[in-house]
């Protein structure tokens, strides 16, 4: 935790990120070498809620989320399952305190998410369509 506190500001300094168009589209992105080219909504839900931990091809998924304070997190879960963040956090507290699942790591911003996905063969996260560049592959579009 302490170390992450030191690490993230360093990353943040290196990559000052403009992000002020709140109504653009969110997309789910994966590592380009994952062998996954498209996903259904239910497949995305199953991975982001920890119901399954592997892609259809057997590759272990490494899900990454954004911090609560990031506006895209609320938009993502509203668009994906129609749920408020409080519901999503209640779900994860149930998983955590019953020893079933650890919630996915929560990163500070889109650039960290993209880097995570590049670094992890099974990486999967969500970013604004404008940030989805050639480093990752878009497998699901959430609409506005």
């Amino acid at each position, binding site marked *: 935790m302490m*170390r992450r506190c*030191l690490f993230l500001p360093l990353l943040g300094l290196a990559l000052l990120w403009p992000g002020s168009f709140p109504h653009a589209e969110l997309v789910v992105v994966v590592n380009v070498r994952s062998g996954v080219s498209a996903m259904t909504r239910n497949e995305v839900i199953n991975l982001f809620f920890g*119901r399954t931990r*592997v892609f259809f091809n057997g590759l272990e998924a490494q899900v990454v989320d954004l911090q609560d304070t990031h506006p895209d997190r609320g938009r993502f879960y509203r668009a994906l399952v129609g749920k*408020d963040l409080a*519901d999503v*956090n209640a779900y994860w507290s149930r998983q955590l305190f019953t020893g079933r699942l650890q919630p996915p*790591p*929560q990163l500070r911003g889109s650039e960290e998410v993209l880097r*995570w996905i590049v670094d992890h063969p099974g990486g999967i996260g969500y970013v604004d369509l404008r940030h989805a560049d050639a480093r990752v592959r878009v497998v699901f579009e959430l609409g506005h």
Partner: protein
Amino acid sequence: MPGPQTLLSSGRLAALLLILCAALPLRADEERFSLQGFATLGASRSDSRELEFVRDLSQARGIGREWSAKIDSLAGLQTGWRLTRTLEASAQLVSRYRYDRSYVPELTWAYLKYEPWPMLSLRAGRLGTDFFMLADSRMVGYSYPTVRPPGDFFWHLPFSSIDGADLSLSRSLGDDVLRGKLFYGTTTARLPLAREHWDISGSAMAGGYLDYQSGAWQWRAGYAALRFSRDLPLSGLLAPLLPPAQLASTLAYLKTSGRRAGYYSLGLVHDRGPWLLQWMLNRIEQESAVFESSHAASFLLAYRSGSLTPYFGYSLARSSPKRERPSPLIDRIMADSHVDQRTTTLGLRWDFARNTALKLQWDGIRASPSSLFPFRNDPSSGQWSGRMNVYSLTLDYVFR
């Protein structure tokens, strides 16, 4: 010859490298230690002068007409330690009102988890049981909409953990997920009984469930079998009342050690968008003469609008009296395990801050006059009016 300037900057560089090196092996997905907790501060009262309302049968006394923080307030602390990618240790301590009227913290979870591949999990140690859907998160108020889990469904289940092992396996079937779990262990609970308590720790328990998730729908069918390790502590209570020969035969009749109980359950949850629907059924079969077999159902509908979630619940529980009634005294003891009641619940959850929820709830219990099992301080007549309203206010909090 490096000048002071270069020395300074190489010092900075070293510090930077040190920070980076320290940070690199600890990417967010590889955090080794974690500490998290949950707490509920509750206040509740009923309008009954006759008997006391409890959250479940592990509580020695219940609440009456005065506001009390006793039955719902609790605090839990959990630590996790990731030893390797596939091995994890965890422990949880919870302080809540207990069978002995104290708040001495209890170790509710302490296990090692091994996940050799992502869809298989093996755990050993002290584990929560969830053969009734949601039973293992009953103490984490923040994780459900209501003030407490539906009593008519859950107070039968005073034991919440076992010392043993469980195995769970999941499998994707297209968009759907099938999950199964098996467990075996011995229970750890003690139940209050008059001035004494009934130690049911060491009772062997085995069971499992199948869980099917299809989109927003989740189905669960579970079964568990328990064999009681000990008899009820009745000899002290009955000795002054009966001649020795009759005492022995009465105690033999009320024997619980070696007797089995079977727990069957079905659950259905629909959770998508603002609506949450939960529907659960259970059937409990008691082999011993002293407890009545029972069934229960519970239904909950909640709707979220912004930070507010109003909800409506309805639950019922009924037990079937035994046909055999060998003596009035035995009859009186057996009458204590009778239940026949319905509860209507209305409430509001307000998520007013991050990881914090305030809840307000009314429960209207309508029972047959002989429905005594779920309550404390039973009237000596063995009958009550059968009407009770419970008012509750709780503040739930989690941190992680």
